[in-house]
């Protein structure tokens, strides 16, 4: 446990000092929230009588959590693998699980910070109330989703052959899913066929679970049906990660 905290402390240092990681996981979601809400304009009413600016707060929280977990892990693990750092770490007495747990812990810390940060921005700029009464439900959804997306991110590294391929592969998977899942475009503007399609992938159900937990008046705060789809993807990722994850560089 001491060892895990030791590892997590250094993973945090490395994360906050890496300008690319900070930009893509912290700054970019904020910029997207401001841009999307500005384009949507004030007081436009979407489905369920919810303002579109309000809609974008849980949408960008969803994006932030996926960026902090799946995207950050896939990118940073491939870079560390190809630099030889994963192999180097394996040659020390540190158990492998500590290394992986440290990275997952790092992602969850960032995800929780982003939940707080985007919620605060939503409150200040768009008057979206912070759902304090639903905070426990939100944290359950976040934790289950973050763990699942971490497993998917680790599994994804097996498909990424080099550092150069990491960004195109990760973004090539995530960006279309954000669009199809109603993260960038409000879902009442999307054809129902698109939503049906996106329901099979993990981002749409995770977005719905976050949405239900965040905005009152949408039925129960805990959307177990959506969350279980995310969890199935997470377990699949875990199985693939255990089977295919590599510590040694692909090159040479």
């Amino acid at each position: 446990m001491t060892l895990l905290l030791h590892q997590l402390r250094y993973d945090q240092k490395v994360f906050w000092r890496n300008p690319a990681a900070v930009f893509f996981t912290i700054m970019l979601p904020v910029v997207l929230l401001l841009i999307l809400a500005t384009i949507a304009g004030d007081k436009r009413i979407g489905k369920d009588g919810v303002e579109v600016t309000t809609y974008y707060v849980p949408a960008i929280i969803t994006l932030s959590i996926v960026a902090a977990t799946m995207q950050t892990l896939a990118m940073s693990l491939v870079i560390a693998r190809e630099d030889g750092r994963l192999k180097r770490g394996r040659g020390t007495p540190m158990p492998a699980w500590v290394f992986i747990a440290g990275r997952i812990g790092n992602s969850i810390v960032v995800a929780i910070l982003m939940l707080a940060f985007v919620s605060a921005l939503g409150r200040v700029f768009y008057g979206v109330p912070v759902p304090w009464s639903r905070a426990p439900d939100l944290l359950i959804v976040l934790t289950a989703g973050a763990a699942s997306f971490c497993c998917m991110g680790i599994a994804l590294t097996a498909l990424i052959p080099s550092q150069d391929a990491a960004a195109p592969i990760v973004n090539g998977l995530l960006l279309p899913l954000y669009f199809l899942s109603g993260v960038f475009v409000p879902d009442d503007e999307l054809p129902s066929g698109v939503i049906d399609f996106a329901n099979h992938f993990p981002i749409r159900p995770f977005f719905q679970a976050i949405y239900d937990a965040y905005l009152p008046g949408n039925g129960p705060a805990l959307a177990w049906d959506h969350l279980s789809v995310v969890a199935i993807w997470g377990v699949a990722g875990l199985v693939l990660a255990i089977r295919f994850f590599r510590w040694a560089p692909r090159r040479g």
Partner: protein
Amino acid sequence: MRGIDLEVRRGEVFAFLGPNGAGKTTTVEILEGYRDRDGGEVTVLGEDPRRGARAWRERIGIVLQSCRLDPYLTVAESLSLFAGYYSRPRPVEEVIDAVGLEGKADTRTGKLSGGQQRRLDVGMALVGDPELLFLDEPTTGFDPKARRQAWEAIAALRDLGKTVFLTTHYMDEAQRLADRVAIIAGGEVVARGTPEDLGDRDAQPSRISYRRGGEEVSLETTTPARTLNELTAEALARGEELENLEVRRPSLEDVYLELTEPDAAEPQEAGPE
């Protein structure tokens, strides 16, 4: 690999010398526990590396052939990170001095030169205070000054009583650092011994060469003192000088090239791997 038989003694610097692609890294990765062998018996510090548990890993230090350290950590942080993995680490400041990075403790790893990064890499292998160190081509790609500094750091390890297993394709590196050397070529050990007597170097004839009347003269002798005495006596009697006079024993490089490329007429430069 076609059967390697090696024994490394405690407290010595052992150099595993061979051209690129000879199987050096494969061998060292088997010893480090990264790779499975097809057959045979391997014991490192009394244990099979493949089953080496945490207690075994505490006792070895590894420097890989190529590893880019985390550019966002400083020298001291990189060492502290690794120190935390071991139960009885050495003080970080002491390790910084041991690898000659004084004054760089708070420099980010990404801002170090290639040679400095490599020495930090050695420091990260040392910080757990291991008994045995594996260094896989520690100075490949270094400029002469950085090599000299790395050599000093490695020589200091021997003085600390560490056992060092070093792979290299530089003859001068083996000659300078190693107590014993094994030469590997085509997956086999083709020679072993101390740098002095490797390949019966001490029993081989010396070569004397000089210029006389604009012509190169070269002869081989097993009694260089006597032959030289006769030659100089003759020259003095004739009142001549022996221009460009040189006496040479076969260098480790000669032996190495002969052993690793027996069929090649021209010695080849070892290129980057």
